[in-house]
C-alpha cells in the first residue's frame, strides 16, 4: 500500500471543495504533483498544498494500492473521494458534504461525522461512518430519478432526513435514528435503521426498509403479518400502495 497523509493547514471558515482527494487522482502522481492538484475555496482556485500538508510515499502506484489518510478536521471540506473506484480513504475526523459521491469502489471510512449528501449517487464500494451522518445519505441529486445504485453504507450513529432517497440498489445501515422520510421512492435498495424514524418508504416501489425502533407509518401501507428477522419480531407492511405496493417495510415490535 502507498500511504499519503493530508492535513489541513488551518481552520477553514469558507468551505473547501476538494474532489481531487481521491485514490484515482493521486495514484499516478508523485507527491509534488499531488500538491499541485486543484482545490477551491469559495471563488478562489488554489492548489492542495496551499490549504493542506501532503506527506507520504512518492512513487506512483495503482489506485487500489492507495491509502489516503485525512488527519485533522475535514468537516468543512466537501467532495472527498468523489467518484473513487478503488483504494481507501480514512478520514480521522469528520468529513464535509458529498463525501464519497459517485464512488464505485474502494473504502471510505470516517471516524467522526459525515455532513449531508454522504455517498450521493454511489455505485459501489463501502462507506463507514463511526459518528452521525447528515441528510440525504445515499440519495440522488435534485431532480434525478435514481440515487445510490450499489455498494454499502454504514452509519454507526444517527442519520438525517431523506436517507436513501430514490435508492435504486445497494444497502444502507444506520445504527441509531434516522430523520424524516427514509427510503422515499425506494426502487430496490435495502435500508436498516437501528433506532426510530418517521414516515419511511414514501412512494417506495421496491426494496426493503427495516426499522427496529419506533416509527409512524404512512396510511398508504398495508399491514401484514408479524415476521421474525434475526430473532426479533417485526410488523410487516407492504407499500407504498400509491406505487405498486411491492416494497416491504418491517417495523420492530416493542417488547413491553
Amino acid at each position, binding site marked *: 500500500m502507498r500511504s499519503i497523509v493530508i492535513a489541513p493547514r488551518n481552520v477553514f471558515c469558507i468551505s473547501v471543495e476538494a474532489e481531487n482527494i481521491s485514490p484515482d487522482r493521486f495514484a499516478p502522481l508523485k507527491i509534488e504533483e499531488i500538491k499541485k492538484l486543484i482545490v477551491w475555496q469559495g471563488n478562489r482556485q488554489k492548489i492542495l498544498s496551499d490549504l493542506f500538508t501532503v506527506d507520504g510515499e512518492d512513487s506512483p502506484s495503482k489506485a487500489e494500492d492507495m491509502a489516503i489518510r485525512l488527519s485533522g478536521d475535514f468537516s468543512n471540506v466537501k467532495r472527498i473521494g468523489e467518484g473513487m473506484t478503488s483504494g481507501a480513504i480514512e478520514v480521522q475526523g469528520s468529513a464535509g458534504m458529498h463525501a464519497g459521491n459517485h464512488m464505485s469502489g474502494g473504502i471510505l471510512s470516517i471516524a467522526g461525522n459525515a455532513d449531508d449528501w454522504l455517498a450521493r449517487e454511489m455505485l459501489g464500494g463501502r462507506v463507514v461512518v463511526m459518528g452521525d451522518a447528515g441528510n440525504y445519505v445515499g440519495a440522488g*441529486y*435534485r*431532480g*434525478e*430519478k435514481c440515487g445510490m445504485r450499489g455498494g454499502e453504507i454504514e452509519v454507526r450513529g444517527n442519520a438525517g432526513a431523506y436517507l436513501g432517497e430514490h435508492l435504486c440498489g445497494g444497502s444502507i445501515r444506520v445504527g441509531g435514528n434516522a430523520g424524516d422520510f427514509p427510503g422515499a421512492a425506494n426502487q430496490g435498495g435495502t435500508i436498516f435503521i437501528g433506532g426510530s424514524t418517521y414516515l419511511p418508504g414514501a412512494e417506495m416501489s421496491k426494496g426493503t426498509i427495516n426499522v427496529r425502533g419506533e416509527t409512524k407509518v404512512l396510511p398508504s401501507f398495508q399491514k401484514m403479518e408479524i415476521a421474525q428477522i434475526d430473532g426479533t419480531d417485526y410488523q410487516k407492511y407492504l407499500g407504498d400502495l400509491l406505487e405498486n405496493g411491492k416494497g416491504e417495510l418491517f417495523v420492530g415490535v416493542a417488547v413491553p
Partner: protein
Amino acid sequence: MIIRGGIVYDPSNGIFGEEMDLFIDRGKMVEEARGEEIDASGLLVMPGGVDAHAHIAGKKVNTGRIMRPDDSRLGTEPRNGVCRPSTGYTVPNCYAMGYRYARMGYTTAFEAATPILEARHTHEELQEIPIIDKGALTLFGNNWQVMECVRDKDLSKLAAYVAWGLRSARGYGVKIVNPGGGESWGFGTNVKSVNDPVPNFDVTPAEIIRGLAQANELLHLPHSIHLHFNNLGKPGNYTTAIETLDLLKDIKPSRMRQVVHVAHMQFSAYGGTGWRDFESKAPVIADYFNSHNHATMDMGQLLFGSATTMTADAPLEYGNARLTHNKWSNHDIELEESSGVVPMIYSRKMLVNAVQWAVGLELALLVDDPWKVLMTTDHPNGSPFVNYPEVVTLLMSKPKRDAEMASMHEQLQKRTGLGEIQRELDWADIAIMTRAAPARILGLPDKGHLGPGADADITIYNLKPEELDTSQDHSLVKKAISTAMYTIKGGVVVSKDGKILCTPPGRAFWVDAAVPQADTDRLMPDLQEKFAKYYSIQLSNYAVQDAYLPHANVIRAGLSIEPLQEVA
C-alpha cells in the same frame, strides 16, 4: 472580408460544390470586397444553418429547466472570455444555446410555439440568446377568437385577428398545434379526429386548420401555416396526417412557397393499432409528399438518449407522463392554448423508440425533393439540437445506418423499410435541408443563401468534400460538422474551431401584417369583451412592448401592400 477558395454549396443560387471566393461587406454578401481574408481552400462552405423548428425560448423551455436540475448539471462550462456560463443538455440555458448553435455553424433559429399571452416571456429569453438571429411562431389553433371567427365563417375578421395576434406577440408566423385539442384539454379531454367537434365552440379541427390557412394566405404572410397534427404521437396516426394534408391541397399559396409546413413529421407517420403492432408508415407519407406540392415538412428526428418533450399538445404530454411514469408539467393558457413538458429517455432497445428513429430517416430518404424536408430533431423533443451532426451523417451513410440498426431490436426490420433504402444524401441535399429550404419555407429572403444582398452568415467546415467519402468516413464527417472551423454571422467571425470569439446580440424577426381598418374595427369589440370578461389581464397590458425586441427586424405583410418579393 474575403473567403478564398472554398468549395461552396449555395443551392438557392444553383451552386453545388464550386470552388469560389466569397465577398462580404458590412454584414452582407457582395460581388466584390476587400479586407481580411480567410483561406478556405478546398474546404466545405455553406450558408449559415437555419433551424426552422426548435423550442428554444419561453415558458415551457424554462419549465423544462426548472423541473430538470438533473439536466442543467450536464454540459456545464464556466464563464470564460466572452462567454457566460453554459448549462444543460436537452434544456440548455440561453447562453449555451447561442454558443452551441454558433459552434455548429448555425446562425438562425426559430422558436416553434408561443402563445400570445406569454410572448413577452419568449422574447425575454430570445433576447438573451446570443449570436443567432431568431423569431417565434405564434400559436393560434386553440384560440377562442380564432374558433369564433371560423365558426362564423368570417375570414376577414379572422385575418384581422391573426394580424393583431402576430403584432401583439411580435410573432413571425401562424403555428397550429393539435387544433381544438388544446381547448378540449381545458376540461381534460381531447379531439380524436379532424372532424371531431371542439366542445363548446361548434367548430372542428378541420375548419380551424382551413380557416387559418386561408387567413394566412389572405395576409400574404412570409411563412405558411406551421402545423402540428391532431393525434400526434399515436399509433395509426398517419391517416390523420393524410386527411389533414388533403384539407389544404386546394388552397392557393399567396407566395411562391408551400401552403402548409408540417412540424416534426416523424411523430405523425405511424401505423398500427397500438404499441404492440406499432410500425412505420413513412413510405405512405413520403408518397404523398412526392405526389403533392402544397406541403413541406421537418423531420423531427428522434435519437436515442435523453430528451425533454415539450409541446402545446398538452393531452399528449399527459399521456407521455402516464406511460413513462415520469414527472409532468402542464400549463394551460386562458383563451389560447395548453401545453406540457415531460422528460424522456429514448432507448435503442425499445422497439417503439427504434421504429420512431427509423421513421424520421425514412421520411427524409424517401421524399425525393430535399426542398420539401428539413433536418430537425424538434429540439428537444426528439433529441437536443447539438445532435444534428448525428442525423446528417445517418442520412449520408448507409453503412452507418446499417451499423446502428444491427444493435437494435430484431423486430425493427419488420416494422420499417429503412434497411432497404440505399439512398445516401450528398452535400447538396444537406445544404438544402439545413440552409436553403428552411430559409425559403420560413420566407426569409436574406437567409440560407450566399447571393449578393444575403446576410453574410457563412459556415466553413474543416472538411474537404472532394476528398472525403461521406458514406464510409461518417465519423470524420460527424466530427467536422459538429464544430465548424469558422462560423461567420453578419460578416463577423463568431466562432472558430469551437471557440466563441464574440457574441453579437442577434436580431428578432417578426411580421407586421396590415389589414383594412374596417376589419379591425369589427374585431376590436370582440376583443374588448374578451378582456373585460374572460382574460385575467387588461387589454392594454397584453401586447409585447418594443422594449423586449431591442434588435427587431420587422417584415411587412398583409392585405394592403404590394405583392412581396419572392424568396431567392
